[in-house]
């Protein structure tokens, strides 16, 4: 599979580096493998000391791990990014319009574009949201759209993460690490800055504060707590944007308003960026056994006294069964064809597709519509007969819970592995912010890399690593010949 894949540096030919990677190729050629490895080690030591860790569920020994960091950056030329940016903004605009519609007038169902049961009987559909209008009509304030690439101009959306996408702290930390380790290389490439993300995030949060919360709305981030796998990111973001990191038991709803308990007394919160799933937000509304949320939060929300970022119910937009309709959804709300195509998706709920999927399991990637993190997934070409048969039984039992996609030849990027520099499959998760003043995106994102040779699974919980993502101000670096590293 690796042989047939598009390589970000060498293209399909495996010969001359593409213009945007010329200086990287030069650098890799000039620098000792041992030097690169020791720089990589240095970066990982810093990450570990800083506690940039994540927890892996169900693995006691490795309570905290760092995500492996690869020092070879992933480079996107200005024109490549330009098209992605335009497509991402279009897609997220459509997602927000879609959410407003399905929790409101449901024009899209009346137009017969989606089967109604796919919305109304979807476990991600939150009935409560049909009677609540999020302040400023923004639903999916923060989206992490997973993109894959198969050729020079072939970018596909693999998943729309419209709930509480994680990984943005790695985007920022990876850049800081690269700037520390290879300042000249970064400077020569005229890499566009991602540093403004925290400012953009805070500005977005303040822009969606409920009316009447004054000039200086109080924002906070809600975390499930320090044992959550993404806790580092929660505390990192709170620190960078300068707001309190709260847990459910710091909060209390009084008179349909949300307060946090401080050493100076109770303090009102106007905007809550929650990193807690819908189900756990409010035990009075959702799961009664949840201790992560706040009783009465949804009531305060219904009264218009708090903005919840992202709004409850956005999960319906990144549901894998809805995903297959995204091209139609984009066209319906924007009146234009989607700039970023979907990966072709077979809906196992439909008899024809199901038949095809069951006949071609060994070639397909099959996913649970409500799974995430690489769990509940079959990668046909990399599975044993027994695994395939076990999955087949599950699909037949509840076909509506599954979709399938062809295994794409995901692009590869040069990556530092034990034997030296080798191609490894990558994806890309840019972060898109939507406030009351429109949709914005920082030039960059999180590049995840499957460190195992041939592997297509990039999830950090499954042993994937990350890379810094460089969006160039130009289409190629201007000064490719300055010496770097030990020769400097």
């Amino acid at each position: 599979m690796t042989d047939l894949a598009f390589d970000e540096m060498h293209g399909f030919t495996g010969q001359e580096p593409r213009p945007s990677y010329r200086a990287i190729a030069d650098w890799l050629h000039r620098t000792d493998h041992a030097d690169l490895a020791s720089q990589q080690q240095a970066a990982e030591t810093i990450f570990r000391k800083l506690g940039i860790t994540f927890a892996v569920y169900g693995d006691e020994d490795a309570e905290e791990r760092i995500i492996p960091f690869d020092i070879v950056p992933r480079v996107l030329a200005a024109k490549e990014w330009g098209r992605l940016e335009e497509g991402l903004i279009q897609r997220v605009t459509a997602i927000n319009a879609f959410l407003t519609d399905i929790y409101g007038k449901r024009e899209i169902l009346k137009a017969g574009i989606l089967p109604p049961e796919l919305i109304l009987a979807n476990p991600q559909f939150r009935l409560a949201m049909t009677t609540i209008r999020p302040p400023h009509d923004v639903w999916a304030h923060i989206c992490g759209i997973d993109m894959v690439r198969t050729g020079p101009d072939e970018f596909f959306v693999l998943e729309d993460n419209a709930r509480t996408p994680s990984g943005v702290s790695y985007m920022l930390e990876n850049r800081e690490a690269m700037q520390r380790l290879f300042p000249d290389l970064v400077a020569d490439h005229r890499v566009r800055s991602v540093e403004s993300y925290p400012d953009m995030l805070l500005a977005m949060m303040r822009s969606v504060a409920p009316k009447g919360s004054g000039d200086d709305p109080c924002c906070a981030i809600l975390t499930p707590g320090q044992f959550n796998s993404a806790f580092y990111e929660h505390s990192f973001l709170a620190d960078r944007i300068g707001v309190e990191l709260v847990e459910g038991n710091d909060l209390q709803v009084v008179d349909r308003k949300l307060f946090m308990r401080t050493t100076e007394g109770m303090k009102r919160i106007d905007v809550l960026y929650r990193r807690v799933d819908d189900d756990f937000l409010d035990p009075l509304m959702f799961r009664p056994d949840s201790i992560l949320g706040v009783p009465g939060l949804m009531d305060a929300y219904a009264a218009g006294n708090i903005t919840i970022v992202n709004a409850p119910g956005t999960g319906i937009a990144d549901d894998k069964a809805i995903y297959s309709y995204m091209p139609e959804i984009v066209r319906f709300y924007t009146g234009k064809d989607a700039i970023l195509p979907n990966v072709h998706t077979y809906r196992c709920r439909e008899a024809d597709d199901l038949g095809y999927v069951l006949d071609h399991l060994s070639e397909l990637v099959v996913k649970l519509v409500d799974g995430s993190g690489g769990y509940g997934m079959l990668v046909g070409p990399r599975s044993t007969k027994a695994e395939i048969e076990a999955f087949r039984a599950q699909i037949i039992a509840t076909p509506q819970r599954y979709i399938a996609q062809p295994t794409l030849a995901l692009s590869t990027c040069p990556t530092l592995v034990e034997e030296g520099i080798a191609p490894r499959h990558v994806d890309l998760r840019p972060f898109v912010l939507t406030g009351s003043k429109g949709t914005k995106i920082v030039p960059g994102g999180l590049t995840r890399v499957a460190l195992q040779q041939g592997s297509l699974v990039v999830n950090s919980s499954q042993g994937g690593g990350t890379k810094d993502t460089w969006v160039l101000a130009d289409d190629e670096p201007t000064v490719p010949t300055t010496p770097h590293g030990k020769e400097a």
Partner: protein
Amino acid sequence: MLSRTASSLYWIGRHIERADFVARLIEAALQFELLPQARGGDDWGSAVSSSGAMDRFATSGQVINRTNVIAFLAFDQDNPGSIMSCMELARNDARAIRTAITRECFETLNEAHLAMKTHVRRGKTGDIQGFIDWIKTVTRGFEGAMHRTMLRNDSLWFLRLGSAIERADNTARLLDVKYHCLLPQGEEVGGTHDQAQWTALLRSVSAVTAYRWIYRDGLKPWLVADLMILRREMPRSLAACVDEAAAMLACLRADGGRTGAADRQIRKIQTSLAKLPIDDVIKSGLHEFLQEFLADNNQLGRAVSDQFLF
């Protein structure tokens, strides 16, 4: 500041202080063991008593000896007052509120956490002194980072408030366990056994030289008590710890924190220490005095958590 954050800071202060104190208890017992008048189990027993965990140790049904006591005080994860438990609790709290302390403070605790396994292995296989030295280095490193890098604001006040209250508790318990030998009874005053006990007590709080410097006199039990209870120059004396706690509460008041029961309680404790010459304390019963102080100090801890909505 979030009340939960304040609570975590306060407990980081307490746990670091306790880890350091327990390390010193073990060290003192180890040194005492080398003396000809060593009493074996008794000395290890008083180390457990001073740590405040005799009841817990007793329920384990183990014999009091060097090996068992060291395992219990240094490494037992089921003993919340063991060095290892204190360090891990402090680090977990630090991780939960890492934005409230500086990067250097967090790194000190996080690096200790990462290196803990190696040091514990070494400590368990013979080099207990090495483990103790390492713990003392870590706690000093944390306090150094705290004093050097933290903003002078409520984060620092809560950390130091926790340290002060814990330190007062530790000193009082240490004295209480040894009070019988501070009293002029039984063996002749100045007998070799007592002499060694006092030296061990002073050494466990790094105060042998301090004693000589302040009193310019041979070891006298009432002077040891005076040093540890009333002398404000002595950083671990009850008076010094109470002053520190009072100063921290005053800073919190000045920063707009709530006022209430803790402020009243600290005034009460200050008053109870102010009126005394040490002779009166000893005459009216050192043990009773220390028990009362411990109760008041505990009450202060509870009042702090009520006042700041922990």
